[in-house]
């Protein structure tokens, strides 16, 4: 019973965020909605006037839309991989950031596929994907994979919510309209925190967390194959599958750090999200940036060194026209996290956040460099006089829709944080309890040990065990 009390206590801390809505909140949401509506306006324009109002043309047939697609899907898979593996490997400090990771997964997964729709010339024929599917096509693989992923992630997310829903249903202090309590009641599915229920939910969550790790890897590889099955020199690469998976987790870890920082200040979570968490996820970011740098290096090195004519064209354009973007995305973006995380003196919450922001931007740029320059250097030389048909640059329509997607991401996150505590209260309270049990256990062991071995003068300090 003590644990239930602790949970309710903890919940009470978060209730103000759920109950009260400040002026700033409204202003922020209005701003986001404005951005979203403007994007919708642009989308309508694009549907009415055709793709001619984007910067895409016959050579560069895909532009920032597909970059955003890869980017958001990447963040989503990263959220799944990070939360899934933290859960599976029982990382002790996972509690407070678990929900952020899970929400990232699902929200990005809603937004990503919208971008692929923006690349489609005839949205009215979307049902054809299901009416005349051809399994040979990687797009069909993607449709199957993304739907599976969406369902998997929704189940996983819901599982992690049930206990908090029950908590809110049972809370005496909660000051919310009746209908909201009723929704929580319905969503809690009659969960009463009995030992059997608790065990069951734990088992299912474990299975699901293992499953979404697998699904995430497969889905992101399928996405990479959309590019690597073609014969385009910059895309036709065997390492694209793992390269994309690594890149995805890299960017996702960055996004999680940024969100941790944001919620930490807004919700004053200094007590829960500590420097330890930033260092923890920062470490993931560092290790992944090493992998990412390694993949990027071997990808471009082999292209440059062997240098077939077309690879050479690609390298040429990357190192002239796209020089600064290349340097930023592939040098700065990978080295900065390594330097900041690698040298303990540099590790502060703010520097880690800075590294995360740079990493995320660099990764977006890296995707851009994979998509656009490749399409600008096809097998048949581009012989055209219209500059916009030779080189791509995104138009304001495409940028507005890009920002619209980011706004949507923020909006859904803001909304989610209004509905459930941003920290998984039950999870954190359980972890606290486990910790104190472990401590008590340690204490007993210690006493026993000391009692038995006084003769041997073994001195064990409690702190040694504490870690």
């Amino acid at each position, binding site marked *: 019973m003590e644990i239930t009390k602790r949970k309710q206590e903890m919940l009470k801390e978060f209730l103000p965020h759920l109950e009260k809505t400040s002026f700033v909140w409204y202003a922020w949401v209005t701003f986001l909605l404005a951005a979203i509506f403007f994007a919708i306006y642009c989308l309508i324009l694009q549907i009415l006037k055709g793709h001619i109002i984007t910067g895409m043309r*016959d050579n560069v047939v895909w532009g920032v839309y597909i970059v955003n697609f890869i980017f958001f899907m990447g963040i989503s898979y990263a959220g799944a991989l990070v939360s899934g593996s933290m859960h599976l490997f029982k990382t002790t400090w996972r509690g407070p950031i678990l929900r952020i990771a899970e929400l990232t997964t699902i929200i990005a997964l809603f937004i990503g596929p919208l971008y692929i729709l923006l*690349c489609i*010339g005839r949205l009215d024929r979307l049902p*054809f*994907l299901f009416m005349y599917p051809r399994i040979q096509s990687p797009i069909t693989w993607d449709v199957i994979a993304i739907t599976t992923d969406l369902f998997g992630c929704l189940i996983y997310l819901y599982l992690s919510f049930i206990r908090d829903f029950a908590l809110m249903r049972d809370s005496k202090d909660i000051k919310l309209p009746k209908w909201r309590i009723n929704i929580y009641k319905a969503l809690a599915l009659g969960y009463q925190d009995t030992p059997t229920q608790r065990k069951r939910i734990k088992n299912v969550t474990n299975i699901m967390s293992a499953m979404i790790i697998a699904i995430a890897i497969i889905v992101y590889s399928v996405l990479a194959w959309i590019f690597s099955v073609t*014969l385009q020199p910059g895309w036709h690469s065997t390492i694209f599958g793992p390269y994309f998976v690594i890149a995805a987790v890299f960017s996702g870890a960055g996004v999680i750090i940024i969100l941790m920082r944001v919620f930490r200040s807004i919700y004053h979570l200094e007590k829960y999200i500590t420097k330890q968490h930033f260092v923890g996820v920062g470490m993931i970011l560092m290790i992944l940036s090493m992998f990412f740098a390694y993949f990027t290096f071997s990808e471009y090195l082999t292209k440059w060194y062997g240098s077939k004519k077309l690879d050479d064209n690609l390298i040429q354009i990357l190192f002239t026209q796209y020089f600064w973007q290349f340097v930023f995305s592939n040098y700065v973006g990978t080295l900065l996290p390594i330097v900041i995380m690698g040298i303990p003196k540099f590790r502060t919450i703010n520097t880690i956040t800075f590294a995360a922001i740079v990493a995320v931007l660099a990764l977006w740029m890296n995707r851009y460099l994979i998509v656009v320059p490749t399409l600008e250097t096809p097998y048949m030389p581009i012989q*055209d006089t219209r500059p916009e048909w030779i080189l791509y640059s995104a138009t304001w329509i495409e940028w507005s829709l890009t920002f619209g997607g980011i706004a949507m991401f923020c909006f859904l996150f803001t909304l989610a944080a209004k509905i459930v505590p941003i920290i998984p209260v039950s999870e954190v309270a359980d972890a606290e309890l486990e910790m104190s049990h472990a401590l008590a256990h340690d204490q007993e062991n210690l006493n026993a040990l000391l009692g038995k071995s006084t003769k041997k003068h073994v001195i064990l300090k409690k702190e040694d065990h504490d870690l």
Partner: protein
Amino acid sequence: MDESQNDKKNNRRKFLRVSFLTGLSVVAAKTVFADIPVDPENETGEMITLLSPDGKLVKVAKEKINYMEKYISPEASRQGIPHRKFVMVIDLAKCKNARVCVEKCQKAHHLPPQQEFMKIYLMQESEESAPYWMPKPCFHCDKPLCVSVCPVGATYKRTDGIVLIDNERCIGCKFCMTGCPYSARQFNWADSPYLHVDQPYSPETSVPGKEGTVSKCDFCPDMIRDGKMPHCVTGCPMGVIYFGDQLEDIVTNGDETIRFSELIASRSGYRHLEDLGTKPSVYYLPPVNRQFPVDRGFDHPDEINQRYKDVPYVKKMHKD
């Protein structure tokens, strides 16, 4: 070569050509339906023998023939013309960028001036190698990546070797455009008067095009069904482009009709970027013993000539 031998060869050519063309016209005739009297006042009483769909020879009054059969629906266009495998041979030695093929094709397919199913490249492999003009249609590959990647089967390979697009099925995902290594495909980026043609749509004519879908060179199966050659073949004043049937082993450019295999063997025909493994149906004869210097190809408005400004040869030309 003495006279009689020459004659014999010519005769054989004539025979081959006739057989190819009759082959095609029988196919065309097969689909003719006798129907609906036309104008009774114009009746001449002339009768024509036709092959009915069930294989019988029938006599029909000429006036009573209605040629509505020409319309091939998107569904019907998925079937190839039976017992055919169409190939094209392009003789690079004869091309001087006259661009008649481009214009004829654009006119027939209602394309705006900048959109070309047939494109003419000025190719130069390296600074040292010789430049040459290279007309490039869709290669109608036997292993077409564009077809493999299409998620809805809007683009398909037929038994006669032709790769078509059904723009009533195409969702416009543009995946096929990234799949095709030869930049053969174009997207209809906006609505335009060129897309509004008063005729029923058939993938065999690619007309009318539709906004938000993909189009490309179609090898003119509508012309073939009529026993005619594609527009680019008949248009070219130099006889650069040969078209024909690989199964019958015969190709013609309108002036001469030759065995396909002999032409390829004697002139060392090759396919562009063979190593990609897409197995094109379009062959090239290397630009040797050229009939015209490359410079003859710059006889065009600036807008066209400017396209080739990045080719090393042109750069050097401007410098000198």
